[in-house]
């Protein structure tokens, strides 16, 4: 909060996010706009294409260490993953296995699969998941960053949870079915997607951090995302053996039981023992993190 000028991650586009995330001037784009790798499916449907198919990938340095970076353009078709878009991200993870960077940083801003592309989009996102896991299995850490207008939903919600660690702002949301999908299928009584405060309490960064889905909660500020990525890069590569998976599974089972009756983020904060759940949405990241750290067992799987 002592930064005089914040630059909103939420409002920035994919290129501005990357520029502020990595070392100044270090980013080199791969498969850039000038190559015009546009979607054949959107063209067939006579819909507007984007020269980068809504995702920017490339290599850069962070604190002088080599990283690969991907950033989705939420404003283009909701950051949705089409065939080309997915292939660029898949290629990024395959490249990571060859060039062995210190990490892959993935700035997620997506509602999931691009429905216009149907099966091609579904296949693209499953290939992306497989490539991400192969890179992790090779010892390359993958860190997700969520703070854009589309959050991380659908297939990209799954991709987010395949990462070693996640940095979120409260505005960045994470889930499987998005609020509008739930409302459409189950009705407005089940979930009112127009109720932003509710959407943030149920899918936003503060709840995801409380549950341990997100590793760090930051303010909506590009420099804060950069600082978080730097601190993740400075950590040892997280363990990914069978014992760690078993522990995660047990934690998830306990969590499902512990919050079985919860209908809202407020219920979860109450069960966690936070003194004034209703005030939590108004806290800035530093105050929220302090409050969470003061709990006897802050989160399940952080």
């Amino acid at each position: 909060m002592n930064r005089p000028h914040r630059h909103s991650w939420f409002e920035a586009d994919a290129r501005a996010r990357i520029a502020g995330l990595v070392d100044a001037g270090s980013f080199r784009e791969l498969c850039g706009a000038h190559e015009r790798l546009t979607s054949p499916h959107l063209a067939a449907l006579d819909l507007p294409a984007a020269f980068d198919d809504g995702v920017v990938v490339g290599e850069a340095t962070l604190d002088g260490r080599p990283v690969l970076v991907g950033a989705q353009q939420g404003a283009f078709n909701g950051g949705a993953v089409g065939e080309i878009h997915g292939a660029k991200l898949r290629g990024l993870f395959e490249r990571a296995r060859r060039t062995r960077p210190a990490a892959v940083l993935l700035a997620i801003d997506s509602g999931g699969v691009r429905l216009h592309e149907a099966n091609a989009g579904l296949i693209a996102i499953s290939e992306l998941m497989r490539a991400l896991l192969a890179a992790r299995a090779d010892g390359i850490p993958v860190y997700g960053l969520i703070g854009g207008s589309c959050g991380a939903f659908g297939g990209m919600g799954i991709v987010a949870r395949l990462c070693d660690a996640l940095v979120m702002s409260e505005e960045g949301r994470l889930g499987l079915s998005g609020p509008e999908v739930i409302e459409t299928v189950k009705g407005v009584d089940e979930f009112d997607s127009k109720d932003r405060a509710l959407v943030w309490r149920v899918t936003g960064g503060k709840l995801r951090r409380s549950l341990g889905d997100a590793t760090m909660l930051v303010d909506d500020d590009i420099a804060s995302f950069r600082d978080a990525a730097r601190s993740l890069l400075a950590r040892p590569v997280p363990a990914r053996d069978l014992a760690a998976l078993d522990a995660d599974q047990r934690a998830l089972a306990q969590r499902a039981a512990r919050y079985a009756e919860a209908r809202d983020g407020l219920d979860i904060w109450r069960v966690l023992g936070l003194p004034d759940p209703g005030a939590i949405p108004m806290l800035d990241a530093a105050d929220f993190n302090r409050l969470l750290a003061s709990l006897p067992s802050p989160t399940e799987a952080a």
Partner: protein
Amino acid sequence: MERFTLSLPSVPCTRADAAAALCGVVSSGNLEILVGRGGAADRCDIEVNTSAHGFRDTWEAVLTDAVARHAAGGLALAINDAGATPAVVSLRLDQALEALEDRA
């Protein structure tokens, strides 16, 4: 989609290494402009792909104005548009061409 190309007179861009620059994002009411190297030094070649049909006259007026305001000769502009208003198109053109001039 409506697609057309134009070649308009413009003062030559002095920047010898005018590499590809991208400005804007394709989203509702917005557009992206890709700037690259074109043909003749005193013309600006422009390719328009727009989701709005029947506005070619307006496009020509906005584009003619923009390349008269800037040194865009020898450049090629490729535009993907999702229904931007003329004011937004004009703003993005200024951004794309000023970015080049700033770096010159």
